[in-house]
């Protein structure tokens, strides 16, 4: 049973902190090329933001902000982004997940690999984010 927390301080602090958690998660995902971080870590931080929202605001309010059935859908979309990037390279004539074969005009091969890695990390982040929130919602579901 997860109910809205009874303290005003906790509620206000949650409302202030959660957007910054999301922003930090996007930062971790996008700067995975340059610093520690990447899809797995960023997706986990995104899921931590949603779970903090669930714990502080209660189920009614947080289910409106992020519906529980959205989790697995986002996870599937993430894996589709990942495998779709590989499939695009395959259909363009290269090997599976060989980003150098991605059909992008006017971009040399290292940059194609760079953006291929970025798409893959976004897919991983979406997948981890959706699956972790889905697991939390499954575990805290009331019969």
């Amino acid at each position: 049973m997860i109910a809205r927390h009874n303290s005003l301080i906790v509620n206000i602090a949650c409302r202030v902190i959660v957007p910054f958690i999301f922003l930090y998660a996007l930062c971790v995902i996008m700067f995975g090329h340059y610093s520690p971080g990447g899809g797995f870590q960023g997706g986990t931080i995104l899921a931590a933001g949603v779970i903090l929202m669930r714990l502080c605001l209660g189920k009614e309010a947080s289910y409106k902000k992020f519906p529980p059935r959205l989790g697995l859908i986002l996870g599937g979309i993430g894996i589709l982004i990942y495998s779709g990037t590989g499939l695009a390279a395959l259909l363009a004539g290269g090997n599976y997940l060989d980003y150098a074969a991605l059909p992008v005009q006017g971009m040399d091969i290292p940059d194609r690999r760079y953006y291929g890695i970025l798409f893959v990390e976004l897919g991983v982040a979406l997948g981890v984010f959706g699956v972790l929130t889905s697991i939390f919602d499954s575990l805290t579901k009331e019969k």
Partner: protein
Amino acid sequence: MKWLGIILIALFAAFLFYAEADMPAYGDPGAPGSVHVTPEYIERTYEDTHTPNIVTSVLADYRGYDTLGETTVIFTAGLICYLLLGGWKRNDS
């Protein structure tokens, strides 16, 4: 039964410590794991991918298949949790 478990754990720990003597020293540049493909990755990561973070380029580019498998494993775990615990509407006949 409890003592059997303790003895088994002690034997296994002794076996692991015995096997650990053959491991290469920590950070040894001549270790087998450090001379096979690791120098190639370290030297060519920036030319190949324009990505300064070697971990990211190995994770997502050189070993992309592996990461696809990991993501699929995580997704499968979430799917199983959903099917076993979550909103599986039982409207069978």
